């Protein structure tokens, strides 16, 4: 047992790994989508102590305004930082959940590409592909990122993808008050007697 990973996380991972599916193939390597843990030397945002992240093309992510999204995490002790440098996003879809059909185990989503001139698409995604720690976030209106990326690992090109939900900011008391004030003002302006 790896003592650097909290017990609850390890139990979660064990459960999810038992559901591991092969979802993507390249000519040479098959890759699964099982959730992976963050290396001990990186924080939750995938950054090291200096605030740098070795994962993916961060300049590109910055330009896309996605620096704050949780980046693909990797197996502790498996990949070195140099190998991580070779993970390159091919497309990042920002998704919005339009509807959830719990009976069918599906969510209907709207997908907007963050790279290139690609039109919006809609799709249906099985809820089984949502990692356990994100399941509470799945509801109409919630936002996720579907990242397709490739990594070059020990000379092999591995195509992979990841679906992660964004933890949206929450309403504060101050914001709620501002909304009510703005509505009062708008109502007064609209109904102003000449």
């Amino acid at each position, binding site marked *: 047992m790896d003592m650097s990973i909290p017990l609850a996380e390890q139990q979660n991972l064990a459960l999810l790994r038992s559901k591991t599916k092969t*979802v*993507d193939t390249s000519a040479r390597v098959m890759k699964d*989508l099982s959730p992976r843990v963050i290396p001990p030397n990186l924080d939750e945002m995938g950054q090291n102590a200096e605030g740098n992240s070795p994962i993916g093309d961060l300049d590109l992510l910055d330009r896309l305004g996605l620096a704050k999204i949780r980046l693909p995490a990797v197996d502790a002790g498996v990949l070195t930082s140099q190998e991580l440098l070779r993970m390159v996003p*091919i*497309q990042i879809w920002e998704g*919005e959940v*339009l*509807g959830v059909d719990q009976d069918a185990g599906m969510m*209907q*989503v*709207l*997908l907007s590409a963050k790279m290139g001139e*690609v*039109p*919006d*698409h*809609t*799709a*249906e*995604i*099985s809820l089984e*592909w949502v990692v356990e720690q994100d399941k509470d*976030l799945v*509801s*109409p*209106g*919630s*936002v996720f990122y*579907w990242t*397709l990326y490739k990594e070059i690992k020990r000379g092999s090109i591995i*195509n992979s*993808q990841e*679906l992660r939900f964004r*933890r*949206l*900011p*929450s*309403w*504060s*008391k101050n*914001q*709620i008050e*501002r*909304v*009510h004030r*703005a*509505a*009062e003002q*708008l*109502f007064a*302006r*609209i*109904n*102003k007697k*000449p």
Partner: protein
Amino acid sequence: MSDYGAGPASNQVEFTLFGPGYGEAIAVHLGDGCWILVDSCIHPNNKQPASLHYLQQIGVQAAGVKIIVASHWHDDHVRGLSKLAGAFPSAKFILSGVFNNKEALTFLCAYGSIIAKAQTRGTKELFEFVSKAGEEEKLEFAYGGKILFEETVQARKMTVIAFSPTTKAQAKSLSRMATFIPKAEGLPITHVPELEPNLEAVVLHIDFGDDALLLGSDLEDHGDLGWAEILNDNICTGRRKATSYKVAHHGSKTGHAAGIWLTLLTALPIASLTPFNRGSSHLPTDKDKQRIKETVSAAYLTSGASKKPAIPNEQLKRMLAIGKNIVKVNSGFGAVRFRKELGAPAWDVELFGDALKI
């Protein structure tokens, strides 16, 4: 697609419906260069509001637009609306009466860019539209039975009247909006889900003096609300029957009521509609098309182009490993135009872009 040809003559009335796979806009010419606009969508090529682009192409003066109606707040009907309002500063803005209420405005403010900047859809456009109109004191609200425009054009009295929303429908819509108004801190700021069924939409009846148009917006029929209320209202049923119908709610079954065709329209009218491709909803379905075809002389859809994904094959193959039914939201773009001289019995029909006859 920009070759719309010449604009209508002074003695011609015209109805033009624009639509990509997700979006709807309408321009109506009442004669003598007098226009009304209903809703807004974006032209996918030039990113302009479709009706603004159209009016510019055919050389309409800004002062010619008399009223701009936002029939309801859904994203597919309001994209570009604030820009449209800016382009026609002398126009009066009309909004569903449901928003003449503090709770509805709180809903609009909550999801209309004050706080939830990244998580807004139609609410943001509508918030800007309402704020601008409110400042300029030219906002009016539409209720069932309210006359929105009345003027003599070409010696004929032209009347635009709202058939909805009714008082009961507004109350129902408000109660649903209220559930999404943030009340407690700590809850996530999400996109606002679309509220269904659509009961707050503004249905318009346009009387040309000897003929009429019925614009069904996205109104649905829901128990004794929606179309059922209109069909039980003498103010609506006593109006001139329309020879042309913009089919409600993208031709869906929920937007259908037999009484519309029996009471509000002449026998075998011509019809037009926009598609709706989003999520698991793809309207009109084949059954919807069949139902519509049985009641009209002809029906036209603004866009019937392929919904095939526009994603590189290799990426699509990978995406299909965990997703299905991946389709393009905007399946092309097109416009359907009905035009005739005042007093003429039949409409001339022209199709542009990806528009087609059903």
